[in-house]
């Protein structure tokens, strides 16, 4: 009896929490912003998913936490949870009718209430909303009761619909470059999202495939070293060809995004050395980016008129400056660990930004007006063939070359003696020092290498934009880079690419997200640390660690930090 009572309470609590999450999301404005971002055209939109998603997720937790696992009881639990969520949503709509919430919450608008009520009159519309909440919760409960094979198939099918539906605009844009291929796929998409028929076909295909594959052995791993080598070089060559033609395949608009993603990959690779390999949390990483960019600016811009060098003359100087400032910052903070280090580096980043902004250094650095007319890089041999890299597509190749060099260096560093000392220091500083590792030199090189890579990013940024302003070098940039390496997996080089594509690429592609980008980053950081601290593409060593033990304790799963309080 006692047991049942707590189960009711649990269901009610989950439901209320779900409702509160929906209300908060609505008040932030996400729901209304995405109400016209359709997943399936005219059927379901992202905004609607944002209302139903939390409701479903929380009834799922209610079901999971229920002690009584009888089907009927689980259905009831879900229904209660859904009802509670629906009632909270209704409460907001009701409150909004009585008092003007808009004076405080910008997004508590009549539009929002209309969305809640499915654009119907308030009373029947809101009752419909309540009913839908209960129904989706019941469906969630029903879903958990299905056999595992059907569950996987359904889940996969739905996942593909959501992903492809959200990417609809991109896919149609890409297809439009391709002529006849576009005609083949036209029926699947309607106005930037999936058409209903397309969604059904996609669902049947993916769900069917998942159903068929369930329980069947996976593709065999190639164990023969010779074949492995062939496969590896084959994929690399294929990737290379794709990367070379990517700007042509995707068009101008995508090239701009690719450039941005590329710059962040460059800097991510650098920060990955500092944070991922050496375990030093650096929040002032943007400072080196700024130093690289400003060195190029000061040395090449005719506007300031000190030097008037070409890009390539200034390039090594900029790298040297970034490297030296990495060393200089590294010196005083050698003795600090963990959170203190984070704050000091953050302070350093801010000092650089304040100095750049100040009137004091304005004659040299341009103050708030920044530096304009930075020389673009010119490639080729004087007199034979030269080309000034100005368009986004040209710069793509420059950035790509930079990434290849930097990634190569990063991989070699990781596998070198130095890389191993970094990781030893990360795992346990005291033991590492006791083993004879010179922690001064090791930390300094980590900082300086990270700074160098960031400096490269800065120079390419200056070359890409052609003019730099202090506002480009905010603390937020450091957070961007940190988020991407954490989401990708700290210490993992492929993780940097995954993270950059997910955190920089996606928000640029899905234009509607741009506004809520940092909200999304913040939530992603917290969620990653709570659920998957090793990242999306974990470092091989971590994966091995997890593989060895049958049931890894949560501590072992957690990412590598040196500090033990």
């Amino acid at each position: 009896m006692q047991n049942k009572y707590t189960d009711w309470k649990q269901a009610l609590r989950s439901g209320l929490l779900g409702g509160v999450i929906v209300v908060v999301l609505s008040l932030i404005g996400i729901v209304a912003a995405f109400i016209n971002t359709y997943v399936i055209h005219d059927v379901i939109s992202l905004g609607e998913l944002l209302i139903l998603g939390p409701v479903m997720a929380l009834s799922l937790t209610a079901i999971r936490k229920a002690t009584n696992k009888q089907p009927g009881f689980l259905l009831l639990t879900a229904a209660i949870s859904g009802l509670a969520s629906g009632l909270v949503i209704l409460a907001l709509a009701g409150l909004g009718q009585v008092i003007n919430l808009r004076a405080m919450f910008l997004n508590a608008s009549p539009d929002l209430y209309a969305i809640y009520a499915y654009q119907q009159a308030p009373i029947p519309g809101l009752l419909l909303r309540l009913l839908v909440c209960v129904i989706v919760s019941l469906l969630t409960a029903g879903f958990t009761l299905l056999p595992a094979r059907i569950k996987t198939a359904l889940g996969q099918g739905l996942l593909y619909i959501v992903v492809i539906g959200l990417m609809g605009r991109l896919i149609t844009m890409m297809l439009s470059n391709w002529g006849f291929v576009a005609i083949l796929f036209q029926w699947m998409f309607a106005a930037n999202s999936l058409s209903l028929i397309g969604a059904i076909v996609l669902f049947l295909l993916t769900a069917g495939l998942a159903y068929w594959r369930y329980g069947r052995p996976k593709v065999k791993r190639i164990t023969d070293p010779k074949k492995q080598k062939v496969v590896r070089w084959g994929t690399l060559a294929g990737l290379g060809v794709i990367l070379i033609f990517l700007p042509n395949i995707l068009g101008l608009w995508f090239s701009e995004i690719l450039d941005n993603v590329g710059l962040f990959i460059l800097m991510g690779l650098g920060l990955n050395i500092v944070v991922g390999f050496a375990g030093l949390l650096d929040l002032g990483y943007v400072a080196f980016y700024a130093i690289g960019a400003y060195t190029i600016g000061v040395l090449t811009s005719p506007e300031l008129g000190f030097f008037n060098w070409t890009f390539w003359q200034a390039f090594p100087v900029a790298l040297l400056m970034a490297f030296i400032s990495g060393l200089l910052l590294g010196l005083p903070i050698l003795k600090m660990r963990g959170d203190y280090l984070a704050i000091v580096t953050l302070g350093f980043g801010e000092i650089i930004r304040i100095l750049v902004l100040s009137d004091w250094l304005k004659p040299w650095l341009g103050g708030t007006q920044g530096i304009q007319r930075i020389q673009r890089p010119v490639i080729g041999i004087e007199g034979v063939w030269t080309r000034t890299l100005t368009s986004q597509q040209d710069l793509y190749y420059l950035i790509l070359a930079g990434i290849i060099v930097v990634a190569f260096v990063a991989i070699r560093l990781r596998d070198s003696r130095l890389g191993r000392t970094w990781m030893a220091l990360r795992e346990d500083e005291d033991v590492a020092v006791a083993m004879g590792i010179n922690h001064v030199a090791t930390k300094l090189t980590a900082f300086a290498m990270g700074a160098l890579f960031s400096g490269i990013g800065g120079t390419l940024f200056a070359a890409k934009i052609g003019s730099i302003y202090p506002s480009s070098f905010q603390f937020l940039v450091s957070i961007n880079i940190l988020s991407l390496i954490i989401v990708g997996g700290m210490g993992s080089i492929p993780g940097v690419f995954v993270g950059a594509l997910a955190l920089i690429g996606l928000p640029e592609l899905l234009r509607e997200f741009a506004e809520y980008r940092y909200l999304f980053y913040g939530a992603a950081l917290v969620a990653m640390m709570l659920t998957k601290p090793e990242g999306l593409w974990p470092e091989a060593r971590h994966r091995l660690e997890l593989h060895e033990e049958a049931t890894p304790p949560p501590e072992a799963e957690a990412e590598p930090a040196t500090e033990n309080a």
Partner: protein
Amino acid sequence: MFRTWRQKITLTDILVWVIGLSIAAVVIWGTISTLQSGKYSAESWFDLVVKGLALGGVYALIAMGYTLVYGILRMINFAHSEVFMSGPFTAVFLANALNNSGFLNRYPLLGILAVAVLSMAVSMSVAVLVERVAYRPLRNAPRLVPLITAIGASFFLQYTFRGFYGSGFEAYPTIEALNGAWQLGTVRLFKTQVVVILAAIVMMFMLYAIVMWSKLGKAMRAVSEDKEAAALMGIDVDGIIVFTFALGGAAAGAGGVLYILQFPVVHFYMGFIPGLKAFTSAVLGGIGNVPGAFLGAMVLGLLESVGPNLFLDGLGIPVASQLKDAIAFIILVFILIFRPSGILGERLTQTKV
């Protein structure tokens, strides 16, 4: 003997000392040349000092959150600057409503009190919420993990409040009773600054009393000494941690009200710089130490308001006040290098830092 001396002092130590001494030399030289030029009168120095103390009062209250949480969990609550922001950013709507109805100018004390209570309540709830969602599940994780969730939570909160109330600036109404200044001989005292300093002192004293003399405070100190032992003595450790966050949040909310009395404009990004400075003052005074946070905040407030004029003006740097934030951060870096335990801090072992 010679060998040990050589082993103890490394090249990096020497370099750090050289950098430190050269900055000290520049500061001293700047101070002397400013004082010699006689550009500022004694009255303007007095103004700057009072302004600095008022600023320090705000920092002191925010710093309490950092210090209390650090004392118990040995972690920096990075999201505390957003805890500070949430209070005044929410209370601005109450203040404007009270002002429009004329209540605020009829009963200024009651009005400010109502605004303060709301601000404290909101900050307190946000602090408790952050603890529940972002820190509690990670209590035994490596130290880097809660730090990263803290950064994440900080951004999430900033942009949540931006979504709630918009990205623009909201202005607090002016309170007539606090306008103007008292003239004492040749010097004048701005009413707001006096009120802020007094309120900060009273509140800091109350916080000190709670921590030192109440039963809950005793439990807090016990938990900060040794969590396991405290739990064995029958102290609800999780409850005490929540109480600590709540206390720190309430102090930040109160600090927020004192902040808007001086700078009556709020926006979603307003927490970042004051939060960082409050952290600096907590470190300056010795993190984990309540009187230390107060002392550190007052020193930082003074340095920040007097510093640009005193140190930098003499060096011929134009608009030196632009660099006041840089001064605060440089101070932070140097305390952490030369005396990480702060002014009043216990001697922390290096591993603890």
